[in-house]
């Protein structure tokens, strides 16, 4: 492809640019967004790059329009993305539910900043971890990835497209103001595996938009502009797409929508781990706040403490299997570090029957320094 900006194997760039270029690499052909700090560079980059690859960039009137227009574009077969920050994601909340209901592949990038409300637009935060999971009303599952470097902004954006296409669901890339704005050298890989959505598995006259034939519970997706006719609705519907107001219809639909994500947890969940084999204590972190942890772990180990590291690269669905494994490996304590009042820690606390859980959870806007974590750590071990 004509890749003017990113031909080199190694380049110096920002997280937001890397995210946008990752989207282009993944085959994104539609971007709609609304300016918001600290994510605006993604839109600016896309406005320059997308027309070069025959894509469409449009700056919409608000975030409500941005996300829904992405759904429309995705239903013509184009990969679509929007980027925003906490306040914008709040506005998209209702439509995230629509995206789950219509099972429409879309990528939503949120560059977390301080909140609540306008908060600290130019600072980083991890306070929207629950927002990414629970933004919309109703009972649903969602996929959220958490990059902690510029390289991962590139890699995980591509992965977000792949997961959204595979499971027909909006996937959220939850980054933050620092990872989005900082510059690092990244490697651009030449052979990247791209996943395309499942096509209808039956001819048009037999097609039912929400009929899942396979074990993955994902129905084949028809698009506008083909011989397939289909009706999709945010109302509770049956496999034909017909609105159904019975309790049975709600149960069948919601169970399938949740189950298709839950049962794919082993394929979706992604993390980095170190020294788990002999670790007694594990530090669990994610995003920008995980950047100082490897140094802490190495220093502690030099002093003889048996400390391990888990860095989550996907936050939701929460990796229950990983927690169980940590417990089985004999870890007695997990220390969760996050830049909020304690969000992921509550998920880890569900496994308190396997290990004790403590946390360094501060609603701050700068990541914890290695020295700070180290001092807390040696008090705990």
């Amino acid at each position, binding site marked *: 492809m004509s890749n003017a900006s990113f031909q080199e194997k190694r380049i110096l760039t920002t997280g937001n640019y890397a995210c946008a270029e990752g989207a282009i690499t993944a085959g994104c052909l539609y971007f709609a967004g609304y300016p918001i700090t600290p994510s605006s560079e993604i839109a600016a980059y896309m406005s320059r790059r997308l*027309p070069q690859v025959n894509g469409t960039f449009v700056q919409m*009137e608000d975030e*409500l*329009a941005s996300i829904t*227009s*992405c759904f429309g*574009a995705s239903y013509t077969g184009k990969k679509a993305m929007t980027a925003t920050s906490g306040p914008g994601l709040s506005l998209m909340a209702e439509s995230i539910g*629509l995206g789950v209901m219509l099972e429409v592949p879309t990528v939503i990038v949120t560059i977390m900043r301080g909140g609540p409300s306008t908060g600290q637009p130019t600072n980083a935060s991890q306070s929207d971890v629950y927002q990414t999971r629970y933004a919309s009303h109703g009972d649903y599952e969602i996929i959220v990835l958490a990059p902690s470097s510029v390289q991962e902004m590139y890699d995980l954006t591509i992965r977000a497209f792949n997961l959204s296409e595979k499971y027909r669901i909006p996937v959220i890339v939850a980054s933050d103001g620092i990872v989005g704005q900082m510059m690092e050298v990244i490697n651009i890989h030449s052979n990247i595996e791209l996943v395309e959505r499942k096509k209808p598995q039956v001819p048009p006259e037999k097609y039912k938009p929400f009929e899942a034939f396979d074990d993955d519970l994902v129905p084949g997706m028809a698009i506008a502009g083909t011989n397939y006719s289909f*009706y999709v609705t*945010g109302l509770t519907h049956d496999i034909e797409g017909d609105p159904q107001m019975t309790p049975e219809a709600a149960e069948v639909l919601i169970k399938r929508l949740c189950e298709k994500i839950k049962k794919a947890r082993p394929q979706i969940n992604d993390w980095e781990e170190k020294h788990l084999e002999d670790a007694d204590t594990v530090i669990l972190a994610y995003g920008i706040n995980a950047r100082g942890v490897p140094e802490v772990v190495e220093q502690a180990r030099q002093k003889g403490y048996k400390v391990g590291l888990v860095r989550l690269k996907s936050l939701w669905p929460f990796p229950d299997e990983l927690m169980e494994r940590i417990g089985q490996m004999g870890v007695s304590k997990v220390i969760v570090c996050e830049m909020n009042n304690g969000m992921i820690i509550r998920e880890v606390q569900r496994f308190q029957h396997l290990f004790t859980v403590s946390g360094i959870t501060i609603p701050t806007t700068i990541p914890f320094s290695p020295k700070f974590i180290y001092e807390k750590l040696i008090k705990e071990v």
Partner: protein
Amino acid sequence: MNPSDQISIPPEALGHPLIDMLNLNRFIFCPGCLIGTVITSITRCLKERGLTSKDYAIVSGIGCTGRSSGCFKAPAFHTTHGRAIPFATGIKLANPKLKVIVLSGDGDLFAIGGNHFIHAARRNVELTVLCINNNIYGMTGGQVAPTSQIGDITSTTPYGNVEPPFNLVSLAAASGATYVARWPGYDTLRLQKSIFKCIDNQGFSFIEVLAPCFVQYGSKNRLGDAIEMLEWLKKQIRIKVDWPPHQATFDFKRGIIICGEFVEEEREGFSKKVEQVRIKAQNKKISRRIKDSE
């Protein structure tokens, strides 16, 4: 009656001439409502133009008219409240070959979705937007709408509405729509003539279709049943030619509703503009200059 006790008539047996293009099982509208008339008018136009379901997409919002998209055998999208137009914009921009028709109500398009309407009109996105205006929120139980008139009795204005309404024709024209018309929903010949023009227009087209709601608006304001309300409406209609949109009076109290075509303008549509941006972006000289200036 238990639904399973109903005698189910296969839609084929009804012999509807548009049965190939319509899903009659999804008609949920009150007998006497004009939404069905509008749906068949659109379908007739599509059929007459030789368009099949691969050539168009139907998008609706929430409310009575929101349920209309399901009646089409086509790619049909029932979206969230107010977001029909941005959803349709995404479809149109991502596949400009498609004719994209938005069918929604006055509350959906002009209250919760008002911002999207004015911006889509400003951009001149090639959409056909039909607003079925019943001057009230029908499905949610007859609440005041941005099109309800001063003095109207609704569920949420028991003492009479004190807010002036939007004039949808003036609003569409001022926002930049390149085709604007208003017709009573029963006047299917004029309506269809307009729908043809919308389908052919390379820009944002808007038709306000008057479709009185006797269940909510009529009963609360003592205007009678479905037929009586249509007669009440008919008496007020004044069809004008070359009438300026800002004088398109819509006034139940004075009994004057100006109908007709108010804007017919040729202006390049948004998807063409986006294509021009692509051509510029793929010009190496220009893209290098943009990169250097960053």
